[in-house]
């Protein structure tokens, strides 16, 4: 009897969650929609990072490069080419992918410490270039006055992306779709090879796998999805600034993934929610939310190497909920 009702609840859970996600913006004021959108964008950014780190073992401290490039590309498209979100997103992903291929080509030749330092170097280099290219990026002033597009699909009412509630659904759909694609990548043969490389590059080489090519493609895909996250930022904020390329922005997906759990697919998503919620709550009460974030992070690194999801998964009743974010062997 107990088993059947438990499994009934277990199967109902995803539907309840989906239902909550759908009803959420309608039930609460606009501010809560904007909070959720921040979580979606951060989640995607972190998922893209974790593809590199959790699955392939590459710790990049310069991931903001692709996030920022995606954001600026989308902004420039909307401002100068056409007020089309589809075009902006497509261009962002393409440009970020190519940039990641170029930078990745140099970076993946190195391992561990040298890889990390190189990503930091590129991060700074791109930031500084962005700062200098005032004509393109607006420099310290940033890009303002970006028209927020509307989407007209035949037969449907016009979708006004400048409306917070509407944008909530839009970004939810995009991020969910991206997550599905990432899940497919991770469960494919490619994903298995990445994990083999993460566990031991030497062994992978001996098995005849082309380590460098796999890592490069992984890096480039991570860049592509980071670019998508950056593109989503543009209609939300209505502007883009150099902050998107800054070293501290590179730190965010790292913090978020560690918090949630790098060995779980949805770990970064959980981490993103915690991160944004802690930030918002603390900011209302005190100014120093980074302090608390740092403390939480130290605790996580020292005592919860599996992140929050890893911690929760230890308890039997929750194991199935974590099952959606199941540990990949």
């Amino acid at each position, binding site marked *: 009897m107990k088993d059947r009702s438990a499994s009934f609840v277990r199967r109902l859970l995803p539907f309840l969650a989906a239902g909550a996600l759908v009803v959420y913006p309608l039930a609460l004021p606009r*501010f809560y929609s904007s909070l959720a959108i921040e979580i979606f964008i951060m989640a995607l950014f972190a998922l893209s990072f974790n593809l590199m780190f959790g699955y392939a073992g590459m710790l990049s401290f310069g991931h903001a490069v692709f996030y920022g490039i995606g954001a600026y590309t989308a902004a420039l498209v909307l401002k100068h080419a056409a007020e089309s979100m589809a075009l902006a997103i497509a261009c962002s992903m393409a440009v970020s992918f190519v940039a990641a291929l170029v930078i990745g080509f140099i970076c993946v030749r190195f391992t561990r410490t040298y890889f990390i330092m190189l990503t930091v170097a590129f991060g700074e280099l791109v930031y500084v270039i962005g700062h200098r290219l005032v004509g393109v990026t607006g420099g*310290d*002033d*940033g890009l303002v006055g970006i028209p927020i597009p509307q989407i007209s699909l035949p037969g449907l009412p016009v979708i006004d992306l*400048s409306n917070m509630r509407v944008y909530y659904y839009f970004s939810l759909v995009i991020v969910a779709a991206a997550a599905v694609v990432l899940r497919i990548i991770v469960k494919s043969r490619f994903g298995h090879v990445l994990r083999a490389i993460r566990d031991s590059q030497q062994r992978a080489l001996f098995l005849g796998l082309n380590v460098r090519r796999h890592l490069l493609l992984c890096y480039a895909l991570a860049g592509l999805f980071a670019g998508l996250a950056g593109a989503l930022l543009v209609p939300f*904020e*209505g*502007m883009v600034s150099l*902050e998107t390329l800054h070293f501290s922005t590179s730190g965010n997906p790292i913090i978020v993934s560690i918090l949630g759990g790098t060995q779980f697919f949805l770990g970064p998503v959980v981490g993103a929610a915690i991160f944004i919620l802690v930030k918002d709550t603390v900011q209302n009460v005190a100014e120093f939310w980074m302090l608390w974030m740092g403390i939480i992070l130290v605790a996580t690194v020292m005592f919860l190497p599996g992140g929050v999801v890893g911690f929760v998964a230890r308890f039997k009743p929750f194991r199935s909920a974590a099952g959606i974010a199941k540990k990949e062997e």
Partner: protein
Amino acid sequence: MRAVAIAICLVLVCAVTVFAAGQEPVKIGVMYALSGPLGVLGTDQAKVSKIAADQINKEGGILGRPVELLIRDDEASPSTAARVARKLVLEDKVNFIVGANGSPAGMSVAEVASRFKTLYLSAGGAMTELMTGKNCNRYTFRINHSGAQFYRADATYVASTFPDVKTVAGINPDYSYGHEMWDGFTSELKKKKPDVQVVPGVFVPMAEKDYTNYIASVVDKKPDLVYSVLWSGSGVAFVKQAKPYGMFDKSRFFLAAAALTTAMTTLGNDMVRMWGSEPEDWQMDNPMNKRMVTDWMKESGGKPPHAYMGHSYATLFILKQVIERVKSFDTEKIIAGLEGGTFDTPWGKMTIRKGDHQAMGKIFIGEAMPNPKYQFWTLSNPKVIPAEDVSLPMSETGCVMK
């Protein structure tokens, strides 16, 4: 009987609601740079805003409603300003936003104001042409000056006061505002003195702390005049670092556009010989100014207000004046009241131009001198130029108000 009782209850309920609404505070989001090297100015602007709000509430509030300030740090950064402004509008549901230090932050807030149809009054010194030019919008009003008002006044003053100036160099912050001011000043100066030699301008990153590498390149050109709009903490740091390199001994230093008074009040006796242009004169003799200066000196321990503090103070009073004039909190009515309206300020009466929402204040230019009455220098006998004389004509602003 029952009908009468119900009627009385309804009347009471209505009265209570109206009374409660009347007591509901007017929420004003106040954004300034409270941290970082540019925070010197912002923190004081936030404090003087509090003083203004307290005074307004002492006088009965605005149309009977008390003023409540929500003070936030914009870090002089466009991304922080956008986020903070959005939060003020969506979560805190403010009625108005004032402030924003620096053009990048100011432009960001203007965008948010336009998107969410909330009134924004720039009082933090965001002086880029764009705000009342190409990017002007219906919901943004600029109470502080536009950069053009300053550089045109500066060029006029320099040309007439220093006829012997042959070489001009500049050291300015490397963003829109710094470039606009340098380009504007030098082109206006050349119009008046075609024989002037302009050395290529030196630009430093916005919140730079180490000027030593840049100083040599300026000093070495032996300019007669050095023009700078390094404001708030940047100006202070620059003066301190440049002094031992001998910069102020050989060249006249012109610290323009509201940067001088901050330098004077912060440097005290570390001050060096220089000139500058200011948006206010705290020594002016009018009742509103005297009251502000007295209240501020109590708070600051005898230091006078500097840079745009008077504007921060005045902006809240301008809101009070316009709302009481149109007798409404309706945004559209307030916009109509602000456009072309004339208001009392610590520097006299000031009008806001309808076409671009730019306020027409005054510019005070002169030399900084030690003042025996105080621990710091002051602007002595400044020349007063009305902004109307030096503003860009509407046709040149590029503003098309939608």
